[in-house]
């Protein structure tokens, strides 16, 4: 038991940190109906910017800096798909590719940055919590605060007029236009906000593991989608607060299952295969289910044919 608890704590910390990306996809994928494939690159961008600013001696500043970098990346993705005639999936892929170069450039040409010796938001928090003897929980506290603030912001934001307009854009853009709202604007705002969360998520992960490499965000979009879809199966409420809570829960469950699987000697490199399979099952499951009556009929008919053929002999 004593060595299970830290395991659970690690899963919770990592789950919370990655849940910020899942919340970003909740906004872009579930609400705005845009599959933002720049997520991987944007996550890395947040990590790289966060690490670089922390390394320069400004751990607190690293957070707004990473979020701002995310906003910029989201703006470019949104601009390409709304104003430049680039298909929305392609816009994400293009930005993702471009970010690879940009991220390495920010790390001054290196693909790895170590921030072992530099102050981070986590070491700052550790110093504060040491006073009350809770310094072991520094990562958890930072992650909880970040997720709490982002979730609260998202909850309030989606109830504002701009939030409603963003939801309507993903639902029925015709209706948005006839309500005298420009869906281009809502798409841009939505993707900027979502990518700010993704940037923050990357920033926190980089600082919690005290290093960042260029691959830190690879596969993030699939992992986050898997978490999002897991959360959706656990909490099916229509109420916004529950949906957001479900999203965070999904991220945590994903991490927990992954951590347990590691304990049972699943090699770590299997993570991405597993998350891909989860996404496939979650998306194609309902589709296959809807096709099932037809498949069943076909089998029945084939069976009946065989039977009549047999009788004919």
């Amino acid at each position, binding site marked *: 038991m004593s060595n299970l608890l830290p395991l659970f704590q690690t899963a919770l910390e990592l789950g919370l940190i990655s849940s910020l990306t899942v919340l970003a996809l909740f906004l872009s994928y579930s609400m705005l109906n845009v599959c933002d494939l720049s997520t991987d690159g944007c996550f890395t961008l947040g990590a790289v910017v966060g690490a670089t600013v922390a390394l320069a001696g400004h751990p607190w500043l690293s957070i707004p800096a990473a979020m701002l970098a995310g906003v910029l990346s989201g703006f470019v993705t949104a601009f390409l798909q709304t104003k430049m005639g680039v298909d929305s999936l392609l816009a994400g892929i293009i930005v993702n590719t471009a970010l690879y170069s940009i991220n390495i450039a920010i790390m001054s040409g290196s693909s790895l940055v170590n921030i072992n010796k530099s102050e981070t938001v986590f070491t700052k928090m550790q110093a504060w919590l040491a006073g009350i003897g809770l310094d072991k929980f520094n990562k958890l506290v930072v992650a909880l605060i970040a997720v709490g603030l982002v979730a609260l912001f998202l909850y309030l934001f989606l109830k*504002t007029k701009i939030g409603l307009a963003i939801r309507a854009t993903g639902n*029925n853009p015709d209706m948005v236009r006839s309500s*005298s709202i*420009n869906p281009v604007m809502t798409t841009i705002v939505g993707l900027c906000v979502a990518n700010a969360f993704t940037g923050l998520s990357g920033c926190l992960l980089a600082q919690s593991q005290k290093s960042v490499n260029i691959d830190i965000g690879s596969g993030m979009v699939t992992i986050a989608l898997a978490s999002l879809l897991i959360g959706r199966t656990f909490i099916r409420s229509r109420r916004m607060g529950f949906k957001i809570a479900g999203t965070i829960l999904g991220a945590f469950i994903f991490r927990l299952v992954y951590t347990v699987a590691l304990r049972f000697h699943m090699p770590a490199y299997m993570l991405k295969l597993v998350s891909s399979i989860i996404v496939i099952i979650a998306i194609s499951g309902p589709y296959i289910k809807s096709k099932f009556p037809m498949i069943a009929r076909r089998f029945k008919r084939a069976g009946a044919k065989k039977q009549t053929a047999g009788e004919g002999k």
Partner: protein
Amino acid sequence: MLKITDISKTFNPGTVNEKTALSHLSLTVNDGDFISIIGANGAGKSTLFNAIAGSFFTDEGSIELDGEDITLMPEHIRAKAIGRLFQDPLRGTAPDMSIEENLALAAGHGGWLSRISRKEKQMLREKVALLNMGLEDRMDSPVGLLSGGQRQALTLMMATINPPKLLLLDEHTAALDPATSAKVLELTEKIVAENRLTCLVITHNMQSALSQGNRTLMMDGGNIIYDIAGDDRENLCVEDLLKMFKDRSGKALDNDRMLLTKDE
């Protein structure tokens, strides 16, 4: 109030699919007009509405609304002055959002960062109660759960919650069952009369094209072939209308729905 001058629109120009949907069409709509538009399939009725609402820009010509040139104004800005309903009742509402949220977006009160206030909730509820469909007790349910007729009635309320200068109705009751259709039509007339809206209606019902409103337009080949009002219109019956069409266009009206629709 609406002045359309010599507009044309050709789709897919220079290809085998080239289609002239509007050809040098001009039309002046007066304040308070209620105009019924009839015509065969492909006559350009919906294309005319698309041009007025700004779904595309015309190739040439100009459109003026209340003295303002809107020829090159984007669709969402025109939407402030132009309300529109389609035949498909699913087109005007966001299904995953509640009745209240749909209406609040259409009403557009308050700033971008404001939430739906209690006062606004009350106002929206009263508006929905006017529809007389019991929807005011379901303000929080998603619109996707409503029937086609309820959704169309709601869309009508959304289009007129800020009374537009011009209301475009594109066979907005054609997809509804007869009873619901009659109800939505009745609501439309009530709202149009109360707000004294200027209104263009595409219909496939020849009888209502003559009885409803004060003017009847007949379209063919991307242009208006008849514009009938006043006494001429009073004395006209459906047979005359069919004959007029044949005389002018050299063919019978081939709108199958039109032929199948009995006089009500």
